[in-house]
């Protein structure tokens, strides 16, 4: 679903960018109606193209400004949509005493968060990703919750347990814990702890 949304966004932005550029081209006289007709021989497009190519002088500047603005905005949107998500550093350096560094892998911090979730009854599994933002830890993830658990109480308990576990282990403050809960199928196998 997420990939589909991304693709849809890219297609929509590309169409908007193309429309803005064609408008700009027609108004500035770089493109002709014949060229547009060759690419897309469709009567409504031809009508729109003719209107845009023969704009009165008063509205011409507005259309140029608007299409430049739309092109820039859609281009920025496309760049944002197509650029990969920021990568997480591999290691977190903890400030300890004594000569030498203390490094902990972010993978270990993810595991630590998952261990924190084990303390909460009804949490079957937690897949967490810990990041560092301005010297504080940020946790995002997805928790698989038993169908017999009251989410209103288990949710905050889980967030608190994860934050406590990370704070105790690393000594760093936890800024936020954002967990999406997925209720487990009633017939699924459950962990007994």
């Amino acid at each position: 679903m997420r990939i589909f949304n991304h693709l849809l966004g890219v297609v929509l932005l590309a169409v908007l960018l193309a429309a803005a550029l064609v408008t700009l081209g027609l108004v500035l006289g770089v493109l002709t109606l014949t060229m547009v007709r060759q690419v897309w021989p469709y009567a409504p497009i031809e009508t729109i193209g003719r209107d845009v190519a023969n704009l009165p002088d008063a509205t011409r500047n507005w259309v140029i400004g608007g299409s430049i603005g739309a092109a820039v905005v859609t281009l920025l949107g496309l760049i944002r949509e197509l650029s990969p998500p920021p990568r997480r550093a591999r290691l977190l350096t903890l400030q300890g005493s004594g000569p030498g560094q203390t490094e902990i892998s972010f993978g270990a911090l993810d595991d630590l968060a998952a261990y924190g979730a084990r303390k909460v009854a009804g949490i079957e599994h937690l897949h967490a990703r810990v990041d560092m933002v301005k010297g504080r830890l940020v946790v995002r993830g997805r928790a698989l919750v038993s169908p017999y658990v009251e989410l209103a109480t288990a949710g905050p308990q889980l967030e608190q347990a994860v934050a406590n576990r990370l704070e105790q282990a690393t000594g760093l403050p936890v800024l936020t814990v954002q967990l999406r809960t997925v209720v487990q199928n009633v017939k699924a196998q459950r962990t007994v702890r």
Partner: protein
Amino acid sequence: MVSRSDREDIDLARAALVAARGVPGVAGISRGRYAIARTFGLGGISVEGVQVAHEPEGLQVEVHLVSSLVPLLALADAVRVAVAAALADLGVSVTAVHVWIEAVCTADDARKETTE
């Protein structure tokens, strides 16, 4: 002090490994998550999880470990002290002990891994 030639790196790595393993809260020694940390000796022998480096400022030891669910900074400091003391017993002074916590596990998980 004993010079480098008197003590082979492999002996130092072994001593550091034993010292680190003995620290409460250390569940195991890791090979390293992204690159294998290893000290080589003569005859193809090696110690995994500990790397000894002779830097201009002195001897530096890198220990890669698996931690139990304990405060990690305190654990790293304890490892640092234990490794430095173990190497001091061999007559070698260490300028820095770098501790890399590669993974964490519960005591149950550690027990399961050793029995498997």
